């Protein structure tokens, strides 16, 4: 399967002569499918925030509204995914409306394969984040309104095909997420929220400077990605702009040493926010590098790739080492959640077609793995009423469902076969060892260290000698099982059938075109400048 993928990506300079035909294609057509995915949550958030809710009487209704909104969105996004024309080298579901013509800003949305993968992840995470937020009891109306706004910002940043729209949604995401942590976080929520605001704010400044740099260098007439990213820049300008983009991405992904917000946010934020931030929120960083640096500024990307590989290696090693040293389970989850970001960054740094393809798949799989490990450790600490690793010991037999899900999370993080991360990690390493051997080996060593850290933590917490002095322990609730199960299930689903299930006895896709087929759309165009560095 890997070889087929690699060969497919390598050879695709023209669209596939036999793109898959999905049963039911063309049933539903909308020119505004991406706008619906962005603005429906905003509209529902506004409605929720003005709904009367005396003494929390309608808290359950509000939760249901948020859930069914996300379910509806997932339905819309699944239609988009199902109807997506695989292997086409162009942006699909485009919407283009003049917004600020005086400065060349256009409301331009559109997705290609990598964008579609991110959108599917965003839709899935929307449902999971709401399920993970069922425990919210205070100011329910505000919480779900902010959560929906945060989701809309992430979806908007994914679908943006204009730099103005990208900056708008990228920067806007900081506000609801900071407020969510400030309002519903743990004991150290103030520190967590302000750190997040400071780091993400700095990232937004860097992105805005990079965007303005591109704008100025391309004549100052347009922010449309179609126009500005296809205009060649001077090599020096590419490096300067690339540095800004990389800095913005490094604060969001996050990469060492721009990770200062991650530990506190993952450890203090409410569960739904942890899921959202650890998955789509942070994957936006890698998506930004792919979209604005790798795909648009090849000279800048080549020059910055050793730096990116170095930071990727440092991130993975740091995450694993810090997880080994910490005595707080939620901190351990936070550190381990840094690892998939480092692997994805390595793939982007390697700049080979197969490593880039691995990174694109890693946007999806890494996001799921990071969210799963951070939220599984958070749920264990909630259910065990302590996060102290000195106290937590041998709770596995008393929380069997959580034990299973945590083990799956650990396997997903490490990228073992059958898990979706296996495919993405392997592709990343196959590509990276050729062009970034030192970085590749360092990241691999970091993954080995991660395995040790996971073994130590999981062995102690789940399978160690039970601590009789520890507080009472209970297993995951139905809601917690569902949201953790969905994360683990998605990792397994893509790991087992990345090409989508087929109709029995045929080569026709059943209903899912397969993420492996979808994410390669437009990928040959993106990797074309690096084709010379591809495999044997």
């Amino acid at each position, binding site marked *: 399967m890997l070889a087929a993928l690699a060969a497919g990506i390598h050879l695709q300079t023209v669209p596939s002569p036999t793109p898959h035909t999905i049963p039911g294609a063309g049933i539903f057509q909308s020119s505004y499918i991406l706008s619906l995915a962005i603005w429906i949550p905003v509209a529902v958030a506004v409605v929720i925030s003005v709904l009367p809710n005396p003494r929390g009487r309608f808290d359950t209704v509000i939760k249901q509204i948020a859930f069914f909104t996300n379910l509806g969105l997932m339905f819309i996004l699944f239609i988009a995914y199902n109807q997506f024309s695989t292997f086409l080298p162009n942006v699909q579901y485009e919407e283009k409306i003049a917004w600020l013509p005086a400065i060349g800003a256009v409301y331009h949305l559109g997705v290609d394969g990598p964008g579609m993968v991110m959108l599917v992840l965003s839709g899935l995470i929307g449902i999971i984040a709401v399920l993970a937020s069922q425990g919210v009891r205070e100011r329910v109306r505000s919480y779900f309104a902010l959560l929906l706004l945060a989701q809309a910002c992430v979806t908007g940043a994914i679908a943006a095909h204009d730099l103005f729209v990208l900056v708008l*949604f990228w920067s806007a995401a900081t*506000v609801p997420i900071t407020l969510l942590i400030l309002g519903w976080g743990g004991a150290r929520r103030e520190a967590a929220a302000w750190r997040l605001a400071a780091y993400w704010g700095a990232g937004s400044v860097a992105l805005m400077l990079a965007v303005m740099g591109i704008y100025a260098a391309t004549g100052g007439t347009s922010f449309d990605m179609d126009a500005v990213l296809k205009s060649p820049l001077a090599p020096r300008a590419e490096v300067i702009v690339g540095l800004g983009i990389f800095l913005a991405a490094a604060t969001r992904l996050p990469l060492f040493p721009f990770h200062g917000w991650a530990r506190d946010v993952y450890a203090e934020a409410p569960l739904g926010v942890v899921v959202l931030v650890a998955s789509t929120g942070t994957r936006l960083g890698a998506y930004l590098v792919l979209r604005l640096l790798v795909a648009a500024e090849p000279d800048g990307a080549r020059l910055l790739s050793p730096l990116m590989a170095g930071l990727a290696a440092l991130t993975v090693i740091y995450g694993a080492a810090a997880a080994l040293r910490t005595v707080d389970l939620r901190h351990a989850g936070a550190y381990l959640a840094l690892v998939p970001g480092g692997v994805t960054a390595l793939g982007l740094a390697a700049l080979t077609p197969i490593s880039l393809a691995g990174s694109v798949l890693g946007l999806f799989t890494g996001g799921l793995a990071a969210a799963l490990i951070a939220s599984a450790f958070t749920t264990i600490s909630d259910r065990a009423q302590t996060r102290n690793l000195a106290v937590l010991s041998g709770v596995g037999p008393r929380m069997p469902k959580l034990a299973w899900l945590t083990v799956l999370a650990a396997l997903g993080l490490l990228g073992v076969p059958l898990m979706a991360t296996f495919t993405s990690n392997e592709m990343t390493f196959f590509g990276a060892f050729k062009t970034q051997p030192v970085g590749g080996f360092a990241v691999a060593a970091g993954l080995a260290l991660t395995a040790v850290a996971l073994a130590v933590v999981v062995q102690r917490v789940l399978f160690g000698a039970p601590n009789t002095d520890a507080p009472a322990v209970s297993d995951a609730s139905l809601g917690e099982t569902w949201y953790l199960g969905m994360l683990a299930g998605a990792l397994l689903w893509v790991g087992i059938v990345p090409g989508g299930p087929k109709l029995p006895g045929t080569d026709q896709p059943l209903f899912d075109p397969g993420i492996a087929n979808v994410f390669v759309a437009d990928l040959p165009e993106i990797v074309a400048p690096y084709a010379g560095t591809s495999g044997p």
Partner: protein
Amino acid sequence: MKYAALVPEALVVAAAVALLLGARWRLPAYRRYRTRLPAVVAVVLLIALGVELWAGAAVATYFSGGLVLDRFALFVKAAALLAALVAIGAADWAAEDSPSISLAMPLLAVFGVMVAASAGDVVVLWAGLELAGVAGVATLALRRPDLGLRLLLLGTTASALMLLGLAYVYATAGTADLGGIRQALASSAPTLPLAIPVLLVVGALALRASFTPLQLAGPAGWQASPVSNGLLAGIVAAAALVAAIKITAAVGPVSGVFASYLEVISALLMLGGGAAALGVRSPRARAGLIAACQLGWILAGLATHYRVGTASAVFLLGAFVIAATAAPAVMGTLGTAEVALTGLGSLRPHRAAAIAIALLSLAGAPPFAGFFGEFAVGAALAQSRHLELLAVGLVGSTLSLIAAIGTVRVLYLQNPIEETRRGAPLPVWTRFSAAGAVVLCALIAAYSLFASPILSLADQGAEGLGLR
């Protein structure tokens, strides 16, 4: 019909005079409708706005070139009228000492802005600026005469500097007409003798524009009435900015003498305003400092001294004047201390939403009006290769945004507290004030949605000033 375009000015002045006379002689009609005065004034402003949008579209000249009604004037007058309208609508009138004066002075200040925006020569420009300034002083002195006196002295100093500079410019150009000055300076070199008066004028205007929002940061500023704070931070500052835009356009041919100076002032305001906003706890002080940061963005747009930059600055000016005028007014007496706003989101949802959106817009948070304006100015700065100024502005805006989030957190994420701990009574809920708050929110949202035609009008305004 030629004079129909001056009807808005006439309506505004007539309403202000009627309010002052009614209060002075306690006319029966005034006493009978005293509680409905804000609504009556709002209706007058709405009519004036309607007439302005209908009749102001035609370009015309009045009083031998003293007043020029062009697209720039149309834009600024509409923005000032809207700012006064929403501030009056959303204000807590129970917190004002003298509703008649607190209503009349904003009208006079708006009239000052309208005159300055239409000014064809420096004398009319100066007159409009002074009128707005005096109205600000009068309303501030109602509650705090000491503050009023201080503001008067500062304003007089700024006026003296400005008059001195304008006199030199007049002597150099040989005309007081703004278009004439531009033509006369077109062939001049940016010499030191010319630089000194231009610097005096620009400095005086920057001082006048910025000291009112910055003054609100001091403890004394919090004790002024909310409407007077809004008037000073928004409309009076806008008058100074309008004068700055017109004068920088007129002396544009010798922009080399003031561009660097303007860059330094704008950088100081953007960074200083944002950083200082993080350090204060009073919401009204915070709003003033955040407004100072946005004011720096407007000056940065002028520092580019070309059409797109000025158009972006004018576009941002519209967003600024609405949010900066309305924010302190809608906070009412609760704006003095952060604890007073605790949990307002569940007690007064309309007012809390208006405060949050006005503050976020001033801080340049997406997707509110301020973000669009700052982005447009940022694009102009990038086009003109002022990337260092852009970087400073972005840092300032980030600091402002963090400060604004702090206030939004208090509004929405903290549970309401008892009245005794709040330190100030909750604003009285009326349909009128709720509608005012909703209109403010809708206006800021509409500014983003309809950014294209608004920016296009601002661009026509900049073109009308003779910029290329």
